[in-house]
């Protein structure tokens, strides 16, 4: 029948339609509110606010995209959030005061920085067991993992170092001195470089992973702005290795850097005290958390435009994007 065919065709189109980048969901941890705000990627509206543990900070997606891991820093544990069920379904041990963590590319284990304890804790996400603890410098925070999963990097804020850790032996194999108060470590997708931000040093240190030497220190200058306000925290590099984005804290801007020449191309004005950022799956969008204006900013990567700000909870800290 004609009607039936038309209906079937409509149904097919709806189900088989191209999944646009905007079908994603953004999850933001609100450090002060002890909640996670859920934002719909298509409408850029807040859809839910979920109560979680105390002082939630780092948040990351599981490899299969079905779960979120959330650092509940003051509860000294990782919470596991099931995306389909939209609720917390369990916890993982983390060591004291987990702030940031990173998942091995294979999806397991989880490497967690224990800020109070000068340790990195390694946890098996399937069994929920602590595998080991690795002593590092004072106030560990930044966690980076090489694309082949063989090298873990942790930065210690007060020791001012990037510690290179062999993931099989769990031994620290090298320590690279960086500028003052390193907060974030990010490997490029080809594994050849490690980008480390220094919040008090006001710079980004680019380290060659083969030689483990700093090959470039990138500085920043915003006209009319006090140098002290430029405090880089989060950094993200596109998969194609062309662009890097650096969240600059109380400078309220994200720096856009040509990742080949290391030149700063632009500063994008976002909200206040921008610290962390996350791309969506196809890197068409970059979401930033603005801790002191209680919102997130949405950057269109192709045009390098900040297209919208969305109010979330109090003191947004981390952000993860689920496809």
């Amino acid at each position, binding site marked *: 029948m004609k009607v039936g065919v038309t209906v079937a065709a409509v149904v097919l189109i709806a189900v088989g339609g191209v999944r646009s980048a905007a079908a994603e969901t953004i999850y933001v941890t609100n450090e002060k509110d002890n909640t996670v705000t859920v934002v719909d990627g298509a409408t850029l509206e807040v859809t839910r606010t979920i109560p979680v543990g105390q002082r939630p900070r780092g948040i990351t997606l599981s490899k299969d995209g079905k779960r979120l891991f959330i650092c509940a820093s003051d509860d000294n544990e990782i919470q596991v959030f099931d995306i389909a069920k939209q609720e917390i379904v369990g916890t993982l041990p983390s060591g004291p*005061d987990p702030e940031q963590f990173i998942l091995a590319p294979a999806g397991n284990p989880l490497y967690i920085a224990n*800020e*109070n304890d*000068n340790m990195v804790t390694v946890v098996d996400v399937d069994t929920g067991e602590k595998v080991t603890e690795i002593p590092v*410098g*004072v*106030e560990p925070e930044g966690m980076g993992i090489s694309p082949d999963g063989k090298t873990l990097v942790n930065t*210690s*804020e*007060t*020791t*001012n*170092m990037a*510690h290179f850790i062999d993931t099989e032996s769990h031994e*620290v194999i090298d*320590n690279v*001195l960086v500028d*003052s*108060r390193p907060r974030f470590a990010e490997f490029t997708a080809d594994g050849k470089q490690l980008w480390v931000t220094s919040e*008090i*040093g006001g710079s980004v240190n680019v380290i060659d992973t083969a030689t483990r030497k700093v090959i470039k220190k990138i500085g920043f200058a915003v006209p009319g702005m*006090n140098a*002290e306000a430029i*405090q880089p925290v989060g950094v993200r590099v596109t998969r194609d290795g062309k662009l890097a984005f650096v969240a600059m804290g*109380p400078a309220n801007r994200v720096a856009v850097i040509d990742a080949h020449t290391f030149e700063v191309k632009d500063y994008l004005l976002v909200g206040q005290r921008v610290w962390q950022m996350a791309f969506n799956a196809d890197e068409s969008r970059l979401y930033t958390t603005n801790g002191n204006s209680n919102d997130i900013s949405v950057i269109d990567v192709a045009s390098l435009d900040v297209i919208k700000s969305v109010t979330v909870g109090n003191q947004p800290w981390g952000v993860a994007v689920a496809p």
Partner: protein
Amino acid sequence: MRRPQVRCAGLLAIALLAAAAPAAAQDTPADVATIPIAYITERVKELPPFSLVDQPTADNGLMGARLGIEDNNTTGKFTKQKFTLDEAVVPEGGDVVAAFRGLLAKGHKFFVADLRAAQLLAIADVPEAKDTLIFNVQAKDDALRGEQCRANVLHTMPNYAILADGLAQYLMWKRWANWFLVVGTGDHDKLFAAALHRAADRFSATIVEERVFDATPGARRTDTGYAQIQKQIPVFSQDVSNYDVLVVSDERDIFGEYLQYRTWDAHPVVGTQGLVPTTWHRSQEQWGATQMQNRFTKFAGRWMTERDYSAWLAVRSISEATTRTNKTDYASVNAYIRSPEFGVAGFKGQKLTFRDWDGQLRQPVLLAGPRTLVSVSPQEGYLHEFSELDTLGFDRPDTTCKLKAPAQ
């Protein structure tokens, strides 16, 4: 201002001392460089804390230095540098200079001096101290940054002018420009009051009235003591026309706390009590300070004080120098700390550096209420060509310091 408290005896203090005692002599591998630091203090007897709510502060200042050494050695594990602390605690009235000479004789070049002004100058002026680096972590006296400055002294503790300016900027931001100044009879009360006068001039506040509060240190108020005080304070503070805040200078912390809620007119109390300008406070949690507070409290069994923080900064400054230069000798470390490259992270949101005209560490000032942080100076809007931190205290054009080596 909360005065530092020292408890001499007590099991807790002994236990802490034992727990924090330097490790027994260990074999240091040949490739590890040792950097010895000396700590010297005169253990002045102090009254018990003013309030039952205050903590006793055993080993005030010393605990900060010890934690600094621990933090340095965590870094040192990776840089192959080992820091040690040689502690000289001189009893009250003892010979501080002799103890200092003893440390010099052992070859010490780096000193954390937790001393009052007179004793600090006495050790800085010892001829053999010429090529040493002495950090002042206690004395706030403005003269030490002015006419009594010394080439071999750097100050991590802020001076009275910095604290008074930090408070004044906030009061002017609030438009509380008319001050009723109440000053105690102690020497330091007068020093802080002088700085408050200077701050009022600088930031265009008006001291509409000044009165001396004559109180002698004594027992804390006894049972039902509040009844007397309730009547005394209104009488003391009456007949002051048109003021916005009562600014109190009671460095000994013996009467200032009585003023809030009892004055004739209803106005906030600020200064050494009430809203207090300080370099560190137990409520400070900004810029990662929570981690510092946690680490210190776990280490010392009590809250970190101003002197602890200043001592910690001094010890960390040395490590910053040895780590960045990869050198451990006095000349290299001293040169680096005084160079434009140097900066130490102190959980205040920006790197801290030493002023080249008087050796004072420039730093933000916390404005603390009893339980929370109210603000941080410098306040937005106070501009400076070089660093906004230089709107606090003695700026380069203001200085009366002519840096000189100790008198021969």
